[in-house]
């Protein structure tokens, strides 16, 4: 069996991969949802847009569900503390997501323009709200979250929903929103043609440039935000007890890892370069390459956040010693091991049949295609 410290690191990487998988796959659906009301002017055009993701959004959404399940299994105390603390934020995400299954499946079943328009805006909310809130949540993680534990490990959160919406976190929300819109735009451009494609490319380029600005601004801001640093010696192989360390808050702490390991600068560099190259490729109508570079940009953005905070997962601003880290907020050795093997076995299978599904459904979705499949298309 792999030793406990190594498994803890592996799980930090695996959750990172799941988050990135979620951003790339469910992200492009959500980006398409965000663009839907703006790039599709008529009902037929909107059906084209919807049907580019129609056969796939359901599978892609499982990245979100499985991400939640994996955090539950690997970092139960993070799952418990984050989701109960961010109660209303998470409910807003869930309620926005409710609009997607019904939006996709029910929208075109009734021929009525009001009905369809309502569901189009539902799909917009379901696409635009979750990435915004995830970004805001990440911003708050970087700032630290006010929670504490008692001796029974009961967590209490002493902040409010409105406190989450502070300027830095909102900027992080803009980074997240724009990167997901860029991702959806690159995908949609690849699957459409003509006027829809033209409008989509304009939107995606705008999102990419805005993302670069917001990402760089957030990076500069981060220098002035107090980060967190463990001051006691961490026994990385120890049982998971988040109360058994000392932590201080200090300015520049989130930059320490970059000083120790300069190669990490590649991550923000990939984020910026990926977005800029995506914009350039989309101008040249190189849509598939644009989707790949956009996905790389997401890896860069999420990687940057992870690398800055390592080994922290959820720092506590009100009881810094109780901050959750990848060393002390994990499941038992046995559970981490079992879940590692489950992931190693099933993740390649998932990637296999997902790519097969995309291959079967490949090609441009056109207005003619929708007209020919009036009763079966979304």
């Amino acid at each position, binding site marked *: 069996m792999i030793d406990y410290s190594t498994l803890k690191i592996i799980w930090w990487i695996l959750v990172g991969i799941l988050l990135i998988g979620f951003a790339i796959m469910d992200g492009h659906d959500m980006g398409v949802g965000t663009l839907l009301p703006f790039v599709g002017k008529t009902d037929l055009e909107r059906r084209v847009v919807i049907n580019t993701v129609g*056969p*796939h959004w*359901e*599978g892609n*959404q*499982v990245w*979100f*569900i*499985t991400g*939640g*399940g*994996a955090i*539950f*299994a*690997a970092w*139960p*105390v993070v*799952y*418990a*503390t984050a*989701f*109960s603390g961010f*109660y*209303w934020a998470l*409910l807003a995400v*869930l*309620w926005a*997501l*409710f609009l997607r*299954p*019904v939006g996709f499946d*029910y929208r075109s*079943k*009734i*021929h*009525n323009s009001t009905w369809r328009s309502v569901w189009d805006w539902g799909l917009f909310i379901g696409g635009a709200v979750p990435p915004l809130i995830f970004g805001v949540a990440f911003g708050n993680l970087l700032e630290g979250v006010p929670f504490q534990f008692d001796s*029974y*490990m*009961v*967590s*209490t959160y002493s902040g409010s929903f409105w406190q989450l919406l502070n300027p830095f976190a909102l900027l992080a929300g803009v980074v997240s929103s724009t990167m997901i819109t860029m991702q959806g735009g690159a995908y949609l451009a690849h699957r459409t043609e003509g006027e829809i494609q033209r409008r989509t490319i304009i939107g995606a380029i705008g999102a990419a440039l805005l993302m670069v600005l917001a990402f760089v601004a957030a990076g500069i801001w981060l220098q002035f935000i107090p980060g967190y640093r463990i001051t006691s010696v961490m026994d990385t192989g120890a*049982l998971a*007890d988040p109360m058994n360390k000392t932590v201080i808050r200090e300015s520049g702490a989130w930059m320490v890892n970059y000083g120790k390991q300069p190669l990490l600068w590649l991550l923000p560099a990939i984020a910026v370069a990926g977005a800029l190259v995506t914009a350039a490729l989309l101008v040249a109508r190189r849509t598939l390459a644009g989707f790949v570079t956009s996905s790389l940009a997401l890896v860069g953005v999420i990687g940057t956040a992870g690398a800055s905070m390592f080994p922290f997962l959820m720092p506590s601003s009100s009881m810094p010693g109780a901050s959750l880290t990848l060393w002390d907020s994990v*499941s*038992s050795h*046995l*559970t981490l091991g*079992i*879940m590692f093997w*489950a992931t190693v076995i*099933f*993740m390649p299978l*998932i990637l296999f049949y*997902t790519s097969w*599904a995309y291959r*079967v*459904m490949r090609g441009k979705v056109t207005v003619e295609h929708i007209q020919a499949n*009036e*009763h*079966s298309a979304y």
Partner: protein
Amino acid sequence: MISEQLVDLSRLQFAATALYHFLFVPLTLGMVWLLLIMESVYVMTGKVIWRDMTQFWGKLFGINFALGVTTGITLEFQFGTNWAYYSHYVGDIFGAPLAIEGLMAFFLESTLIGLFFFGWSRLSKPKHLLVTMLMAIGTNLSALWILIANGWMQNPVGAEFSYQTMRMEMIDFWAVVFNPDAQAKFVHTVSAGYLTGSMFVLSISSWYLLRKRDVEFAKRSFGVAAAFGLASALSVIVLGDESGYTVGEAQQTKMAAIEAMWQTKPAPAGLTLIAGINETEQKNDWEVEIPWVMGLIGTRSVTRQIPGINDIKIKNHERVTNGIIAVKALEALRQNRNDVQALSTFNATKADLGFGLLLKRYVSDMAQVTPALIDRAVNDTIPRVVPMFWGFRIMVVLGFAMLALFGLAFFSTIKVAQEKKPWLLKWALWMLPAPWIACELGWFVAEYGRQPWTIYGVLPTHLSVSTLSVNSLYGSLAGFIGFYTILLVVEMYLMIRFAKQGPGSLGTGRYAFEAMNHEAANGTGEKK
């Protein structure tokens, strides 16, 4: 201490969201197999009517599936939002099956459902059939892992408490997977789903037959549903009896409440058919009993006794008393991990830790426990009898009524006489709500009967909640109920509309009511 109101509201929200979810799940579980049967016949015979059947019933399946997904999202996250202490305390065990469900089953089902709907013209017949089959397998595996998680809540095997991490930790994964409660629940629940799917197709087909429209389509659908439904009805009853047996082993309390067995009866105990339950005096004013049957179901023997509520309470009194010692020792250990004295006391009593924690509902300091409080905690260990007793009985009666219906439906299918028996068709139509009522009641009996625990014998419900404000709960509960109800109304509207229009909604030109498509397309339909 945690406010009772917060606990009640959290429970209500979980119950409401789970029961809503469970309106859609059983139909999905059953219909995937019916779709697979219909499509298999299409691939084998090449008769296009069977493809039309797959596509039309698939359309209704899709309308239902959308809300299954919508309401399912909540459940994956609600343990974290509203049951944070539960998630911390048992996440090491409970999180694993949920995550594996996503990786092994839900990904498969959800990725392939897109190809099921949109892959007809892009896949060869056998490949499309393979997609349908894998979708069906994914759906059922999904239920397996969820019920492994749920089974562990009823019978927490393969795990041990750790005072260092202050939570339950897994020690034997395979014990969790092969938990007899989980396996019995799985087969009983999926059979109930198959029955629900069969009832749905049987009822709607009967309606077409009563109206004498799309007769060839409806007769075939009726036949498939009758055959599959008969097998499902038999299996749901037989396997329900099997889950009665495991309940008897792991959760005698639930069994005693279901049977309103206040006193232990000499073996083999009789089965109480109906009774006038007097909850305040803890007795039945009258009862109608069949001798022997209960003992056979519960113990598979004629000599072993099934304990009544009185004996369970006596045993629990001991466990609560012992549990107080465990809680005190644990609290000492949390202050000083090297307290050897406390550790040895704790190790001797930790099996009853959960029972000690029951008192946390009334006092935070174990030094303040009085004998009266211990009695209250012991009384809490028995769920209320009336809802358990009658909930169970209504479920069983509905189960047998459906068995009879499917038996007759199957018989008339063999004799190709479906249309000639309007009384049978009407019966089938009016029975449409029956599987849903039975499923919801079954879920209720299983989960309400587990009270006062979230994890039986390990973690009391009132300790499991997130420390949220009562106002947050009022807000979210209202939001969930409002949102779900609107979506349910929309779903029912679409379901009824497409069921009424029938296979004509496929736009193939082969069925009745094709005109509705054109009316709708021209904007002159019923929906303006």
